[in-house]
């Protein structure tokens, strides 16, 4: 077994993928972190305090996992969905009844969206109560607040897409809240809906926001957020003196 592992990890093919050997020694364990794109956000060595379950409760990582899961199920849904008032609802019904695992796919995306909103709020509460927003992390806390708003926006714009009674009236109520602002309100509502009420123009606008604009900004800001966690000296738990 060891000889086999050695053979594989020393082969030219393996070496062209990974610039480190089997990570069972300090040197290779360091190299995993510094030479792998998925790991390079982590430091080579971590403080035990920062990985204790009772500190971060893993909520940021779970938020990220939910975002990735939603991206995957969302892209799959795009293979079936057409943002047209004539076809959207029929598409969803077909997805649920005719496409193999279609109902499951839709369930995963919808419940995943609710989960992400919930976990993001919990993550914010965890960061607040552990005092992890304090300098030098004040900027990253702000990035987080924007991420929370974008998460709500992503969820809200997705709500309209099934084009059933639930979507229609929830978005009608939701956008009327925005329109109460006396000066900009009516204009904001018009920009969002593309017309005086929820219709085809609104559907296509919500669709573009939901599948492209908001996720793109989120991916960008999440990258910034995670990079800043590292640049700000890792998790704030590191700073606690015994």
């Amino acid at each position, binding site marked *: 077994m060891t000889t086999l592992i050695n053979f594989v990890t020393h082969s030219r093919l393996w070496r062209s993928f990974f610039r480190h050997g089997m990570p069972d020694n300090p040197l290779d364990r360091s190299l995993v*972190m510094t030479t792998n794109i998925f*790991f390079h956000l*982590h430091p080579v*060595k*971590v*403080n*035990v*305090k920062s*990985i204790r379950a009772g500190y971060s409760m*893993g909520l940021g*990582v*779970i938020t990220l*996992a*939910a975002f990735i*899961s939603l991206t995957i199920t969302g892209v799959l849904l795009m293979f079936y969905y057409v943002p047209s*008032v004539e076809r959207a*609802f029929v598409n969803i*019904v077909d997805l649920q009844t005719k496409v193999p695992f279609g*109902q*499951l796919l839709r*369930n*995963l995306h*919808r*419940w*995943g969206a*609710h989960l992400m909103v919930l976990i993001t709020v919990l993550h914010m509460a965890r960061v*607040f*109560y*552990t*005092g992890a*927003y*304090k300098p*030098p992390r*004040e900027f990253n*806390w702000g990035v987080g*607040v924007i991420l929370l*708003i974008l998460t*709500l926006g992503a969820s*809200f714009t997705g709500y309209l897409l099934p084009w059933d*009674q*639930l*979507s*229609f*009236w*929830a978005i*009608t*109520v*939701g956008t009327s*809240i925005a329109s*109460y*602002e006396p000066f900009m*309100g009516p204009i904001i509502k018009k920009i969002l809906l593309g017309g005086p009420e929820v*219709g085809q123009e609104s559907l296509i606008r919500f669709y573009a926001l939901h599948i492209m604009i908001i996720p793109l900004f989120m991916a960008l800001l999440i990258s910034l957020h995670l990079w800043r966690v590292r*640049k700000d*000296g890792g*998790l*704030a738990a*590191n*700073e*606690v003196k015994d």
Partner: protein
Amino acid sequence: MTDSLPTKQVFTKGTKTYSLVEIVKAPLTMVEKGPDHTLFAFPIVAILELLLTLGMTLALLIFSLFKNAPLEELANPLVTTDPAKAPWYFMGLQELLEHMHPTLAGVILPALVVLFLIAIPYIDQDRTHAGKWFSTPRGKRITLFSAIYTAAAMPLFVILSSMFPPRELFRGVLPDLLTQSVIPGAVLFTLALLPALWLIVAQRKQTNTREVMLALFTVFIVAAAVFTLTGFLFRGPGFKLYLPWNMPNGYNPFDGL
């Protein structure tokens, strides 16, 4: 193995091989920490992250196998649903709309909340106790007290404001600006600021900024939960208050998730 460089040739005698490039004011993670406080991130961090991802996926999968996403009839602008509710995370706002002027509930309050959240770290700059839950035992007590207080005060606000809406009580007596904006706004703000004011005024000597923030944030998050739950669970047809298990017309709040 990389070929070892012939050091002597590269660094001739007297060459300075280092220089001070910059003084960084960032916290040094490793300051005052012995090597025994640290672990190699690989594989433990990778394993933890994998477990969290798998756990989340599994929980989501199991839930999705048992509960289907809702789908009602085709959208029809001519037939209003009763009640017509926003998605659950906006139900707190919709609930507030019942108690005060739309501009106050739908625009001013949300804007203040976002400003408050972003401002928190710029107001509370003191880094002592960063990274510790509730900072101190006193911080924990303040949080607990604020939470219990808000969980009692906000439902009371909802009930009283529904039973004696100032808009109806003073109809024709006081101007709309007073009954719809100033009175409900002032009552809500006073309720929300009371724990923080008590700390600042009565406990002036012992209180630091972090503790005021703990009180304010706790009031905000618990109030948001109370209003969201009220709107989501306790509002039925006609957007009237009902007990969730006692809704008329077979209305089930959870059908609208």
